[in-house]
């Protein structure tokens, strides 16, 4: 297993902020390669503004140029590296559908490289976004 980055991010508020800034910096530099704009699309907080510092997600962004989004979940350290991802069809409050790539990982140098590759593929290499059907029952 490679070096775990920000292993105490769930116990130490400073580490948590550093981890958030790490993801923000990584994503920002990635999007600058294509001059894409981006913005967070959800706040990990309760209705009264109390933040939820659980790394779920630790970072999220919507990229208007692609119509796609990413949500990154960071888990606390474990004996083995972990990296999985999936696509989730969801929708905005007005019912407009969009798809997010959900990345779930323990952050190490190895999984960081995998995350970068997955982000590149999702935002740069897929051509037109897939058509997403509106969610049933909404």
């Amino acid at each position: 297993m490679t070096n775990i980055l920000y292993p105490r991010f769930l116990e130490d508020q400073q580490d948590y902020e550093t981890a958030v800034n790490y993801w923000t910096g990584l994503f920002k530099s990635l999007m600058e390669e294509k001059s894409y704009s981006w913005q967070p699309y959800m706040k990990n907080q309760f209705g009264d503004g109390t933040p939820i510092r659980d790394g779920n997600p630790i970072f999220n962004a919507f990229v208007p140029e692609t119509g796609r989004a990413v949500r990154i979940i960071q888990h606390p350290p474990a004996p083995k590296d972990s990296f999985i991802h999936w696509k989730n069809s969801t929708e905005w409050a007005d019912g407009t559908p969009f798809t997010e790539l959900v990345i779930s990982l323990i952050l190490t140098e190895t999984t960081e490289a995998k995350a970068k590759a997955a982000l590149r593929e999702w935002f740069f290499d897929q051509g037109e976004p897939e058509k997403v059907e509106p969610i049933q029952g909404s």
Partner: protein
Amino acid sequence: MYICPSNPKKPLRAVETDPFSKPTLATIPSPKNFLQMQRKEHRGRIQAQGGGLEASENWAQDEPLTADEGRSLLQRLKAKLSRKERKQRKHHLKKLEDLIDRAEDTGGLHAHFSKSFQDDESDVRVDIEVLGGTAFICAVLAIILWAVIQ
């Protein structure tokens, strides 16, 4: 300031809604957006996914989903799972229950809100998504908000 009966020690803050907001050009019905306007304001879903499973419970309604209603949806979702599927997601379902409990005391959860509860190495998971409006507020607060809107 309101007190939720389920947790009388914690006072609640009002949910951020503006029942007196005026319609804007964007909200005036047109053929194009009429169908979208028919969508319910408060919407979302909880799902049990991964490992070949895709079970879901949705809500779509005019008023915010209360925490009690959220717990009922969760029970309905659990009822759709086999014993093995429930066991695989035991911790994830508990985390969702805890989230609903905490949200009830802290003004609920506002859209867009998503969480996926899963183990770090598995796609077996439980998802919660608030797609529109507010969910998991205290029932008393919901009644007051509803009365104000009326």
